[in-house]
């Protein structure tokens, strides 16, 4: 008998299903009195450093219809490019910025919306700087394993052109699927970022 590695295997993923709100955003689906607020609804606290922005958009299926039962999570650096995480060893992130957000897509319009700040740049594994970006994780009924992608900023053309991750996209016509355009959202600075799950304009998803 040869030796054994004695490593375990990751628990396999299963879909979040149509009732993900019960567990992840119970107040959103009218289950009140269990948690005071839904996790991830507030990303910024008073005194946060950086430019306040709204990030909004839809998750669109292969038939062109927005998902009205998806859950979107985002994770991003603070304005100085530091993550609010124990695994961040380069410095202390802005305590007024959580870095994590979680929102359902609207049950009528399919829009998600985050009130956040524009992140700073963070380094790639070899030390080169990546362009400012927000990491997205999308789950929903019909999605068997959560989908990772990134949102970059349309007004960061120079940084985007230098980003080692964007440079990795072989089919260059797909790069714009990762870039949000600046737009007014209710009179505030925002970025619109639609995620297309399938078909023409399919968003680049990452195997990380």
């Amino acid at each position, binding site marked *: 008998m040869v030796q054994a590695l004695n490593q375990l295997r990751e628990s396999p993923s299963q879909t979040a299903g149509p009732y993900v709100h*019960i567990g992840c955003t119970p107040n959103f689906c009218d289950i009140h009195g269990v948690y005071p607020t839904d996790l991830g609804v507030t990303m910024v606290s008073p005194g946060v450093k950086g430019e306040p922005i709204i990030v909004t958009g839809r998750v669109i299926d292969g038939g062109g219809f927005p998902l009205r039962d998806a859950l979107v999570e985002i994770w991003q650096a603070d304005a100085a490019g530091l993550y609010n995480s124990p695994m961040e060893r380069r410095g202390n992130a802005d305590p007024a910025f959580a870095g994590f957000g979680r929102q359902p897509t609207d049950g009528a319009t399919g829009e998600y919306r985050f009130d956040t700040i524009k992140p700073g740049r963070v380094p790639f594994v070899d030390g080169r700087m990546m362009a400012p970006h927000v990491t997205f994780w999308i789950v929903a009924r019909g999605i068997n394993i959560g989908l990772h992608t990134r949102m970059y900023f349309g007004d960061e053309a120079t940084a985007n052109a230098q980003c080692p991750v964007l440079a990795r996209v072989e089919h260059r016509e797909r790069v714009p699927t990762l870039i949000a355009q600046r737009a007014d959202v209710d009179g505030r600075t925002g970025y619109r970022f639609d995620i297309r799950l399938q078909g023409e304009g399919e968003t680049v998803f990452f195997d*990380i």
Partner: protein
Amino acid sequence: MADNGSFYQRVGGWHPPPLTPDYKTSVLRSPQRAKLSLENTISEMTGPVFGHSMIGELDDDLIRNYATTGDPIGPRMIVHGRVMDENGRGVPGALVEVWQANAGGRYRHKKEGYIAALDPNFGGCGRTIAGDDGSYVFRTIKPGPYPWPNGVNDWRPAHIHFSVFGTAFAQRLITQMYFEGDPMIWQCPIVRAIPDKAAIEQLVALLDRNNSIHMDTLAYKFDIILRGRRSTMFENRKEGN
């Protein structure tokens, strides 16, 4: 992060693929292009960590956290286990969120279409944070199976949904727990989206009589495994991340 390497990659044939046509909703919601492989950067190797102070006293007790006029109907049970990584190490501080149907198989959700009765004393959500060795525990009632609009007569096996945060966003996982001995597990298109029988079995909780409380509560044991990471035995990165 000089002392730790990347997370072990997710290999094909273990997790369900995006397109599983017997689970009909996956047909239009499955990406068709190959994913772009990306070595872990600091954006994936960091992640939000939530403190014990966030957790309310009844958050881990689904029997009591929504009840107003008495306990919910159904078989009382404890679900416990450990959150570990693929190296077998506990993941202390992991946030575990659960949601489930009531004992009749009915969810408290406006999209729900099953005629089974709502239980006025059951909300169906709970959360806890794993202890120093990765251990966690909930108290709840056993959920019922329920029909769902997929095939003309498809039913889901009894299950509890789990959402888990490790220390890194790369470990983010949502899955479902099933119950030992349920024949409906092997008939379910969502379960069968997982191609490997051993992987499915990893989602089946065992009845744990030793931890049952006589005249009070049954127990099921369910361990959750998150991605593990490589030990960095040779450090040759110029930068510290």
